[in-house]
């Protein structure tokens, strides 16, 4: 029975919390030789296993980048697939080291759950998908609709706020597993499917006739999706935060997985600092000096990761472009 598992997990959680010990996460990972990374149960472009169990996606590449930085090998990741509902418990209890699962950074989650977000990997917003034959072109025409979505998400809350503030009636049908959401929507259980717009694009690929559906123009929320770590281990939070920054800075500086070796001897001092040929920046976060070089070399810079994973599901860079290229992606300077 599922809830018994949940209960066991949570009891284990409290047990582990009881056992206490905020042992340095970094030491643990090094000792075990593997990074435990919480991902989704399958969301193309973000974290998705293929039929051989190999994971791909932008969230997955973040896990790989951290493993490259910490363990020197991007493949030393143990992926733990989590439903939206259980993901925070899994992080609190230490079942995973880092949560990289299209998770929205919100005030409550950042402050009240014992976890901290370290940045934004993908700027998103919530949207609505409907069948074209419904003949609706705006979300403001959705009064009376039945809406399918996931439990334990910001989605569930945003949709309540949206319909309430526009004085519209609706019914929400909330599933734990997002494959079930798609199946139910596809079976006609709901008029509308709502989630992050990236999620809509990804899940659409799983539908019987993707062309029969359309995404309405309204974006009803801000969904900054990013990785989170447990509160109270600042060193590990720094590693996670700067793994993300390093990927963005590498793109800014034109350092890619292909040219990383040549770039080591580039003239630009910031490139040298990033790739570890100057200074001893690695030691500030408990790593060696090659940590960021390995991220770029083994996983790639942000643009490479984006183009490899998110482009194929049909999402252009848009706001996720660099700040100096029309987007809002902006990392603090590497110095």
């Amino acid at each position, binding site marked *: 029975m599922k809830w018994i598992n949940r209960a066991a997990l949570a009891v284990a959680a409290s047990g582990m919390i009881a056992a206490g010990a905020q042992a340095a996460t970094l030491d643990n990972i090094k000792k075990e030789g593997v990074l435990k990374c919480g991902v989704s149960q399958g969301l193309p472009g973000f974290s998705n296993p293929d039929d051989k169990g190999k994971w791909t996606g932008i969230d997955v590449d973040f896990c790989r980048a951290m493993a490259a930085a910490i363990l020197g090998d991007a493949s030393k990741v143990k992926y733990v697939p989590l439903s939206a509902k259980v993901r925070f418990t899994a992080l609190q*209890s230490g079942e995973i080291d880092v949560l990289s699962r299209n998770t929205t950074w919100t005030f409550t989650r950042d402050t*009240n759950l014992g976890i901290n977000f370290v940045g934004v990997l993908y700027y998103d917003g919530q949207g609505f998908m409907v069948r074209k034959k419904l003949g609706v072109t705006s979300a403001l025409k959705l009064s009376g609709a039945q809406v399918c979505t996931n439990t334990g998400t910001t989605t569930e809350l945003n949709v309540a706020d949206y319909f309430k503030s526009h004085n519209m009636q609706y019914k929400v049908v909330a599933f*734990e597993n997002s494959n079930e959401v798609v199946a139910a929507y596809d079976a006609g259980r709901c008029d509308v499917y709502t989630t992050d717009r990236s999620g809509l694009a990804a899940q659409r690929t799983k539908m019987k006739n993707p062309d029969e559906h359309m995404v309405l123009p309204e974006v009803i929320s801000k969904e900054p999706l990013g990785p989170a770590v447990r509160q109270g281990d600042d060193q590990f939070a720094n590693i996670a935060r700067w793994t993300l920054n390093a990927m963005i800075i590498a793109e800014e500086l034109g350092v890619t997985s292909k040219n990383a070796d040549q770039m080591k001897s580039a003239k630009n001092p910031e490139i040298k600092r990033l790739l570890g040929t100057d200074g001893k920046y690695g030691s500030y976060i408990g790593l060696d000096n090659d940590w960021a070089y390995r991220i770029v070399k083994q996983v790639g810079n942000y643009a490479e990761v984006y183009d490899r994973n998110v482009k194929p599901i049909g999402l252009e860079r848009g706001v996720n472009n660099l700040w100096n290229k029309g987007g809002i992606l902006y990392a603090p300077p590497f110095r």
Partner: protein
Amino acid sequence: MSGAVSVTTETPKVAWFRDPRIRSLVFQAVTLLIVLLVGWYLVDNTIDNMRRQNIASGLGFLNDRAGFDIIQSLVPYTSDSSFGQAFVVGLLNTLLVAIIGIFFATLVGFVVGVARLSSNWLIAKMAAAYVETFRNIPLLLQIFFWYHAVLKPLPGPRDSISLLGVVYLNNRGLYLPSPEPFGGFYIVLGLFAAGIAATLWLLRRERKRQEATGERKPVLWTGLGLIFGVPVLAYFVIMLAVGNPLNFDVPALTGFNFTGGVTIIPELFSLVIALSVYTAAFIAENVRSGIQAVSHGQTEAAYALGFRPNLTMRLIIIPQALRVIIPPMTSQYLNLTKNSSLAVAIAYPDLVAVFMGTTLNQTGQAVEVVAITMGVYLLLSLGTAGLMNWYNARVALVER
């Protein structure tokens, strides 16, 4: 050395630590102390560590605004309600599906269990096939199966199947008209209840009279008149005097969906089917073994006295079999209630979905939420077990 021998009349004095009574008391006290200490240590440490990790604790969250909607609620609920109210909604939804499920599981289980012992080969084999199939397929799969089996064939709201223009069926649910009684209708209901009470009293009186004198007057017509005649008469009187005391809110298609009336959502429907079909397979086995436990001599004796097979079953076998059937039945009821927590898989908003799912996730207070949920299931289990034990005591053999 004195020659005097003192004779003790008391029982020989043993050292206090050899006295079994004291010893067992001491051991129990020590065990209790250890359990309490370990418990205290765990609780204290948990609270301490949660505080250090900045995880919110306490029950204050129950008063906070929930912020999410729930598709089915037996009590008024909106996204402005509190997490505490969401808890109540989830609990009632769990009870609803458990009670309906137990009812149908018992019904189907009895029929199938008796059918398995039928002398008709086909019926017996069909019943056996039922038991073996549904008992051996994982329940979660069955829930998904029924859910999609219910959803697939049903039309969308705009092509709903309509019954007399008041009942509608589509893949959003079964829409029924809901009664909207006015003040006067409660008088009718009151008369109806009074009619039942009066008839029962009449029946008792006549039975007593039969026992005493061997005579008995039929109460059928008087009873029918009291139960139905009087209320119907009152209904029309009220209608003529002040207007129709009972209106119906008939569902109607407005926009995308039907509004008005009451809705039975497909999630409830398919969950009830899945749970009762599954549990009935186990109950059928209990019923079969219970019946088989009654010695065959009873049947033969009944036949010898001229009972027909039907009556033998009803009056001789089943009452004795019940004593064997009831105890394992309790655990099937408990299983059904606990299994209903698989509801979240098909979006039925039961306690686990609403409270241990959404509420836990939105508040992050795993320890409190899980503790409360486990407490509720424990109480439900104890409650069911208590009821069944009481019933069991009533049907149990009274030894004279």
